[in-house]
């Protein structure tokens, strides 16, 4: 394992210290318990947005803290959900009186820790709503599983709901919008290589030189199936097909296409995938009116990509376009 780290147990804290040093105008960072808030938190009268999850998915979530997106992010250990005390402290720190929306990716650990934190926050008089994001179509049968995982759709939900909160929508309305985004987004990913969690010190799984993990999770969870390597166009097809079928997306839909790097896959490859995915969407009658291309929800240095397709309505489009000023997403502000 060659990584630019000091000791595995210090990875999260040292990276947070680096974020604090690099973005003093955007972020405030608290340690023990660890959480990140926007520099001007709490914003009086605005619904606060809080998300969190294991570290190792950067820029998600800490890189999305700032005007127009998240008010707080709670980073757990690498690939391990944060603990209730972090979430509770952050919730109290960003509540501006209008309540706090917890945006939670659907993993047992995240759900349980956020649940405990929400209960504690409510006990202390903070209004909290939680929305669970579960957009990963790789997990098929939700009756016999912990349900679909939350993946790329989380980034889109955080941006859109951040715009809505900034525009003054109340907690119920922002939560409703968040559920709406989740209901209209579908995602699927593929890994070309594993990644190595620092404290594990070895790759989370092994793949043959000609194998890829189709439907992989963002923690290196094995996916739908292990298959032979294919060309980019074929992979784009294999990812788009279940996404389009699942909502289902229909001819005439307007959509946002998000081509994400899992970390180790460079931009040049993402654009090759984007080209084909957009072509497939078009052939299906779906009009891509917005795009996002880059490493936004990653799995350390894992090579691979995930696609997310979000059916946009007027509100979502408007709040997607609204200004955002965070370390990782920034426009119009």
């Amino acid at each position, binding site marked *: 394992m060659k990584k630019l780290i000091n000791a595995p147990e210090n990875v999260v804290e040292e990276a947070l210290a680096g974020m604090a040093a690099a973005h003093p105008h955007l972020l405030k960072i608290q340690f023990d*318990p660890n959480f990140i808030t926007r520099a001007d938190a709490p914003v009086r009268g605005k619904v606060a947005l809080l998300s969190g999850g*294991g570290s190792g998915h950067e820029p998600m979530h800490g890189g999305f803290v700032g005007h127009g997106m998240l008010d707080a992010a709670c980073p*757990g*250990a*690498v*690939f*391990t*959900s*944060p*603990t*209730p*005390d972090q979430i509770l402290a952050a919730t109290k720190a960003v509540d501006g009186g209008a309540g706090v929306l917890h945006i939670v990716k659907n*993993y*047992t*650990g995240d759900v*349980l*820790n956020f*649940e*405990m934190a929400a209960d504690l926050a409510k006990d202390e008089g903070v209004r909290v709503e939680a929305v669970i994001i579960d957009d990963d179509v*790789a*997990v*098929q*049968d939700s009756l*016999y*599983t*912990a349900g679909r*995982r939350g993946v790329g759709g989380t980034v889109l939900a955080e941006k859109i709901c951040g715009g809505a909160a900034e525009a003054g929508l109340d907690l119920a309305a922002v939560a409703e919008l968040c559920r709406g985004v989740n209901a209209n987004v579908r995602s699927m990913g593929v890994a070309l290589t594993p990644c190595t*969690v620092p*404290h*594990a010190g070895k790759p*989370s*799984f092994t793949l043959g030189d000609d194998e890829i993990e189709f439907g992989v*999770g963002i*923690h*290196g*969870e*094995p996916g739908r199936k292990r298959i032979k390597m294919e060309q980019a166009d074929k992979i784009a097809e294999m990812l788009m097909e279940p996404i389009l079928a699942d909502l289902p997306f229909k001819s005439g839909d307007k959509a946002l296409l998000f081509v994400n790097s899992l970390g180790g896959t460079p931009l040049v490859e993402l654009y090759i995938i984007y080209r084909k995915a957009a072509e497939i969407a078009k052939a299906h009658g779906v009009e891509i009116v917005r795009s996002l291309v880059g490493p936004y929800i990653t799995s350390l240095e894992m090579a691979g990509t995930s696609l997310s397709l979000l059916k946009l309505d007027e509100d979502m489009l408007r709040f997607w376009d609204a200004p955002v000023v965070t370390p990782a997403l920034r426009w119009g502000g």
Partner: protein
Amino acid sequence: MSELLDVPVLSSWLKRADELIAARQAYLSDLDAAIGDGDHGANLVRGFHAVNAKLGTPADPAALFKTVGMTLIGTVGGASGPLYGSMFVEMGKAAAGKPTLDVAAWAEVLAAGVNGIAMRGKALPGEKTMLDALTPAVAAARAAATLPAALGAAAEAARQGAEATVPMVARKGRASYLGERSAGHADPGATSAALLLAALAEAAA
């Protein structure tokens, strides 16, 4: 071996648990890597190190369990943090007012803890989770006549219960994403649960 669990014995349990988990960290993480995300060993090492650092000298078993539970909740994260945390928090509630636990009391305290996990995780036995080690352990503890017998039988039942998760298809937690592919591997949480009960049997011996 005494017929009663008291604060010193319970404290040595947590020390022994920390040692056993640290010794098996890589194994637990490997089990988790096979059907989950490979952090179970590190999660529990972080938690039980913190528990032993925080424990101090609690007034009674209830206080001890509560500290353990809150520390696990505050340091482990993941699924196992709230689950093991809830277990100890519930054990604390069940042990309230008892300076020591005899065999019957211990069986009921353990049962309350395991029930805490089931409530928190909304899981049933047979879904390839830590409950598959802990549920038979409760039954074994309840059936035993003496404390040493209860601790030994619970540890053994948990060990067998963990082993029995190998062929199971996971229905809860991260492993459930694998569907049929989750069969053929022991559940990491069931395995760590068996370690915890083995640590208790050793500490009380």
